[in-house]
């Protein structure tokens, strides 16, 4: 029987929203306070949802040790206490939470082999969250 399992993680990072394709004025108009050249930070909450058949011998869709281990080494180690703008994936892309949720989805999609990836949800603050389920290159604002 197929079940969906969701695990929640936390990390903190800083970023600045600034597009090289816009003028200074456009950047300020578009990103407001988030365009502050010194950057600012968030405590992000990440939810990873996987799915699969419940293994009759373990009662599990996937061993949490494997999911936690992957997220810890491939996602949290990369993003926790980082400045997102300094990372390779954001050298030419604005580190909005939309784009970050897509990057995190791609890391899982590429490397996580223990269960099917359904999607990711990334909360930037308690008021803003973003979900990405693959497919189209856009995350939905929630």
């Amino acid at each position, binding site marked *: *029987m*197929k*079940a*969906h*399992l*969701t*695990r*929640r*993680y936390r990390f903190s990072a800083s970023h600045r929203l600034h597009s090289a394709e816009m003028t200074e004025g456009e950047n300020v108009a578009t990103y407001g306070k988030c365009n502050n050249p010194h950057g600012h930070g968030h405590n992000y909450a990440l939810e990873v949802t996987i799915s699969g058949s*419940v293994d009759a*011998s*373990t*009662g*599990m*869709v996937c*061993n*949490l*040790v494997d999911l936690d281990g992957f997220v810890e080494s491939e996602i949290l180690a990369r993003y926790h206490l980082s400045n997102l703008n300094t990372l390779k994936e954001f050298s030419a892309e604005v580190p909005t939470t939309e784009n970050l949720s897509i990057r995190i989805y791609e890391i899982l999609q590429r490397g996580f082999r223990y269960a099917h990836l359904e999607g990711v949800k990334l909360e930037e603050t308690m008021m803003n969250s973003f979900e990405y389920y693959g497919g189209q290159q856009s995350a939905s604002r929630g």
Partner: protein
Amino acid sequence: MVYLTRKAEFSASHYYHNPDFSPEENRRIFGKCNNPNGHGHNYTLEVTVKGEVDPRSGFVVDLKQLKEVMHREVLDAMDHRFLNKEVPEFLTQIPTTENLAIAVWQRLATKLQKARLHRVRVYETPDLFVDFYGEE
């Protein structure tokens, strides 16, 4: 179609053990959860039903009836219990959050009168939950 979700909380203990595995395998696969004395969680259950809104009552489902069924079928059986020893499903299955969500679904699916069960979500902790949508 409108979806309605009712929450409930229950506290229970459990441990993970498969008698077909060797003691070493049980410890390797289940880690700390293999302690036979058990450990506990405060579970949160979310039951989502779906249906059309009744034009006379304005309800998808009589919430009182849903609440009673949840209490009778799930909470009375599982709240403040040792799942492995006191809940029949878990005499033979491992009481993981996955199996708990499936067991709750099976207990509720046939007992609801009007609305259809859409999803059972069981939180083991605020950082871990399982969704079950029935057999697909």
